């Protein structure tokens, strides 16, 4: 009887562990929005972007390349057609100027997107529930290439590529 009990407990543990693993794989791996574990400490700041590209929840927020927090949520604001990104920033980085600038950048050539914050000059700092007003959207590579070729063909196409690139940069600077 005693041996039977250990056997049943062992089997029960095994089955429990197996189903826990299955649950983890099915809910945690595909981004389903079900999250286990306590939310991490930090304060929350939002920023509006025209285009977030393929920024994902959980992507890092960096300042000068140092990880200071992460993207906590991305939603679409149907009033002014912008993407509202909420950021969670670690409590120890509580001296980020209010007029800081947030941009969406790309890690490496194939890497994912992340949010980079460059500090502004004000003496007042961002607080919980604050907003970053100045933002720059993700650079969509395809539209950049499109712009480049549109520019290139409108110049007659006889130009060398170098010249076209030159024109492009001139056009950019005029803007």
């Amino acid at each position, binding site marked *: 009887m005693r041996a039977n009990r250990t*056997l*049943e407990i*062992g*089997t029960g*543990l*095994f*089955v429990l*562990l*197996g*189903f826990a*693993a*299955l649950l*983890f*794989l*099915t809910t*945690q*791996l*595909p*981004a389903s929005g079900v999250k286990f574990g306590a939310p991490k400490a930090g304060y929350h700041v939002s920023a509006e972007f025209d285009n977030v590209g*393929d920024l*994902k*929840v*959980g*992507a*890092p927020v960096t300042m000068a390349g140092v*990880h200071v927090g*992460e*993207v906590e949520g991305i939603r679409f604001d149907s009033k002014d057609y912008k993407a509202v990104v909420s950021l969670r920033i670690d409590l120890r980085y509580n001296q980020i100027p209010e007029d800081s600038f947030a941009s969406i950048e790309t*890690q*490496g*050539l*194939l*890497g*994912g997107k*992340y949010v980079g914050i460059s500090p502004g000059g004000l003496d007042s700092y961002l607080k919980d529930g604050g907003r970053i007003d100045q933002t720059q959207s993700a650079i969509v590579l395809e539209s950049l290439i499109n712009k480049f070729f549109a520019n290139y063909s409108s110049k007659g196409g006889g130009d060398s590529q170098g010249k076209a690139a030159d024109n492009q940069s001139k056009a950019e600077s005029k803007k």
Partner: protein
Amino acid sequence: MIAAVGNGFILEGVRQLGSVAIFLVRLLGECVPALRRPRLIVHQIYNAGARSLIIIMLSGLFVGMVLGLQGYELLQRFGSVEALGTAAALGLLKELAPVVTALLFAGRAGTALTSEIGLMRATDQLTAMEIMAVDPLRHVAAPRFLGGLLAMPLLAAIFSVVGLYGAQLIGVQLMGVDKGVFWSQMQGSVGLRDVTEGMVKSVVFGIACSLIAVHEGYHAEPTAAGVGLATTRTVVASSVITLLLDYVLTAAFL
């Protein structure tokens, strides 16, 4: 003469295949009645599953760690170490977890099944059961088959999860990939489909490996050498069939 030997060889292979197929059908017929004795099945889940847990978790951890190391090495060349989480998760879920689990299962649980049933055969226990009008297929073979079948997907899932943490251990803690990136890239590109693919694979491998192990034991030559031979054949056949089925299933899922 060579042709005759060749013919004999081929004929033997076909006979084996037929024997396994008939055995499978008979076994499946006995599976439903066997469900009425859940205690026997629980016992076999314990033998095949719970007692394989340590070896599965240990192997999963190391496979995951190697994946983290190799993946980092490879992705670093293209400057995209952020994809490490995705690479590790897809590799583990779709290939490594089902296949390595099946191979370990064949070595750890399959051999035990074959030699146990083979020894029952050699010591005439199976014959004795038949004389007492107890169907050994129902009381010996079917619970073991079901136990292995049920244990395999659970073992593979545990292998995947442990492997992921192994990969994270190396990638994030040792190599310095950002933890948030590691998980968010993974969650962004791994779909439920990938999880399903891995699970379907491990169910199929579970059927194949348990079937081979039980069949070999049941039809082992009733001698010491025969049982040894049957055990060897279990490992060889299970491994080869697993890898072959893996290719077929991968192609089917594409």
